[in-house]
């Protein structure tokens, strides 16, 4: 009985994280119809960002770390100068240039986009200082976790935004397979640049424990830990927030419309590009939250960015999205929990080393029996 309850609790706890990651996969798939392989790397980025920010904020025993490496400041400043400059040129000189030099001059220098990115980055820097402040004062110290979560979500949101704008947007009209390859390329890029010395390095790290991990209660021999409760609570809260955002706001309705039919949506006056960008930001932020909660739950599991374990975690989250019915937000949540439970019960009661097999066999069965997933609607191919 103890074992059963323990397994149930662990399964739900990790399942809620799968659900958070699966949401990103499902939303992107719902709109652009491709598997965003770089999504699992965004999750990793979230985990590592949480660690880095915690370090910057002073959560470590071994000496005071640098606030930021110099190269990051350099990039920030260059971008902040360049963005407005480009924007001004775009607004003033570009029409004149186009009329004199002809259509070879591009329509835009993407100045507005760079400005957005720069403002975003500075807000994050400000938040890091806030995290430092809350860490320093004893009474606000418990709040640091929240600030770090916000920074991780914001940082990954920015990363998602940049990736979408720079890599996926130019491929809007290309075959889906190309987008997929690009996603693989980005995934490789993120993994391999993440393990460079001046980023996260190749060593595993330990996430500082932002709160004391005491068992809140002991039920039938199973300790219910504070971190697990807070983690699952945060995951559920985020899912409710997303649910509200998608089903009860204008923007959410726009997302649904784009997902339903992109061309008609654009005819109805919806700015499709903005909606897609927003979807990426949202999905990446949720993945970052999952990354943060993951390292909070398992502080010793912050392995280096290129570790295959991360990729497998991401893949399982993707399976969760498919099992729940890809493109379906509630399905992703359900699928995440389902995969988590299946995995943990398989490990506890069957052969533990085959944990990946259970997940993939389930995937194949679901696809054969009910290809549209648990909650997905069967679609008829239109001729």
């Amino acid at each position, binding site marked *: 009985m103890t074992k059963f309850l323990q*397994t149930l609790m662990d399964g739900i706890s990790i399942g809620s994280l799968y659900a958070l990651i699966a949401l990103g996969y499902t939303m992107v798939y719902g709109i652009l119809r491709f598997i965003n392989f770089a999504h699992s790397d965004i999750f990793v980025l979230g985990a590592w960002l949480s660690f880095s920010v915690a370090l910057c904020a002073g959560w470590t025993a071994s000496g005071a770390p640098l606030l930021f490496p110099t190269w990051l400041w350099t990039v920030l400043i260059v971008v902040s100068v360049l963005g407005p400059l480009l924007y001004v040129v775009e607004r003033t000189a570009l029409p004149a240039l186009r009329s004199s030099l002809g259509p070879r001059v591009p329509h835009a220098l993407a100045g507005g986009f760079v400005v957005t990115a720069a403002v975003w980055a500075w807000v994050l820097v400000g938040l890091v200082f806030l995290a430092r402040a809350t860490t320093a004062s004893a009474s606000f110290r418990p709040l640091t976790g929240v600030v770090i979560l916000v920074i991780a979500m914001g940082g990954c949101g920015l990363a998602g935004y940049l990736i979408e704008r720079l890599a996926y947007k130019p491929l809007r009209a290309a075959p889906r397979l190309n987008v997929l390859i690009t996603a693989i390329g980005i995934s490789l890029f993120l993994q391999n640049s993440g393990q460079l010395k001046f980023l996260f390095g*190749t060593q595993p790290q330990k996430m500082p424990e932002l709160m004391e991990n005491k068992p809140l209660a002991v039920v039938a021999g199973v300790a219910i830990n504070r971190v697990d409760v807070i983690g699952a609570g945060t995951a559920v809260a985020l899912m409710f927030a997303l649910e509200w955002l998608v089903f009860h706001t204008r923007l959410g309705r726009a997302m649904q419309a784009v997902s339903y039919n992109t061309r008609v949506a654009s005819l109805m006056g919806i700015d499709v590009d903005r909606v897609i960008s927003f979807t990426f930001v949202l999905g990446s932020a949720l993945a970052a939250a999952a990354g943060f909660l993951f390292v909070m739950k398992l502080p010793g599991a912050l392995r280096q960015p*290129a570790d295959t374990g991360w990729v497998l975690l991401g893949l399982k989250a993707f399976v969760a999205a498919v099992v729940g019915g890809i493109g379906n937000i509630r399905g992703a949540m359900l699928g995440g929990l389902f995969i988590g439970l299946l995995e943990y019960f398989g490990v506890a009661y069957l052969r533990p*080393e085959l944990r990946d097999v259970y997940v993939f066999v389930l995937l194949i069965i679901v696809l054969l029996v009910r290809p549209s997933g648990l909650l997905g609607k069967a679609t008829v191919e239109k001729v």
Partner: protein
Amino acid sequence: MNRVRAFAACAIIGLSLAIILPGCDNSPQASAATSPGSGSSPTNSVPNPTAGTTTPTDASANSPATETSADEYVVGHYASMTGSEATFGKSTDDGIKLAIEEINAAGGVKGKKFRLITYDDQGKGQEAATAVTRLITRDKVVAVLGEVASSRSIAGGQVAQQNGVPMITPSSTNASVTEIGDMISRVCFIDPFQGFVCAKFVRDNLKLSTAATLYDRTQAYSAGLNDDFKKAFTELGGKIVTEQAYAGGDADFSAQLTNIRDKNPDVIFIPGYYTEAGNIAMQVRKLGLKSVLIGGDGWDSAKLAEIGGQAIEGAYYSNHYSDEEQRPAVQDFVKKYKEKYGAVPDGLAALGYDAMRLLADAMTRAKSTSGKDLAEAINSTKDFAGVTGVITIDAERNARKPAVILKMQGGRPRYAATIQPK
């Protein structure tokens, strides 16, 4: 008919491309062949400590092959410098570099200096085989050092054996590596011995009798060591109460640990790398298990204490050396390593250092630097005073030497015991 001809034409074009393209890199490499300090001034009599080593990031990394002239010996090292196991490769590489620097400062061997070429194999067997081939045929190395992971040592070792170039693996402990042939030897002990050491320590020193094991089913090192420990522990009168496996890349072990908790063993044997060991230790304590934790040499890293924190305190692991040993060889090495890299060397660095020094020692004894003579000299090494103990290469080309047991105390490994070979 026409199509067949078109096809044949294309096949020929494709094949000739296949020849030309790999050949392309020949020219820039040959032309840019001036490595700092090594090739340009052969009569450089001032011992320049950094001259001997070449890292792949140097400009000279592309320039090895051509001038393996009379003035130097080139030694090859292949390791995973990127990927999941990059830290192992880097530690070993640092140890080797330190040894080369030292040997060169002392005037080299037979009047010639050493130069190191390191290639990354990304933790893949195929890359390892290609890297070793490149080291041997293009860079004309006298000997190859390499790999931590046994499966990659086997991949590279087969190439070395086939080409008749000696290979010393610093730290592959799986028994099958040296079974490839007479060119392959090692400076570390092998897993059966390590399993025996851990079992003996638990039975004789700790006087405990029940054990559970938690091992990585997808990792040859972990699965092999698990088998060896089980065997030795049962032979010594202990009882294995449960055996739990996980798959590489897993981060949450609570399901396995719950199973172990049901049996309440005296010790939990965790043959795995430190990347998991610290994490597992935390989860063990989180579940309220009080068992003693035991591990193998894969635990050896400063990161273990950092990640494991309080949870890893009081755990034991077997290792190749302890930086607290008072032997002068050890103290000397630790001091130099700290000066150069600013950190306490781990076991892999010590093994890399020993492997390189043993190679140099064998070269002074060898009749010539031909693969056969050199391998003979390496294989007849007797009582070589290495950092990781007094090394004698036995008939199976494995190193016979004692192992130490370390105990995690106050955030660092402390020397606990030495266990002699049977």
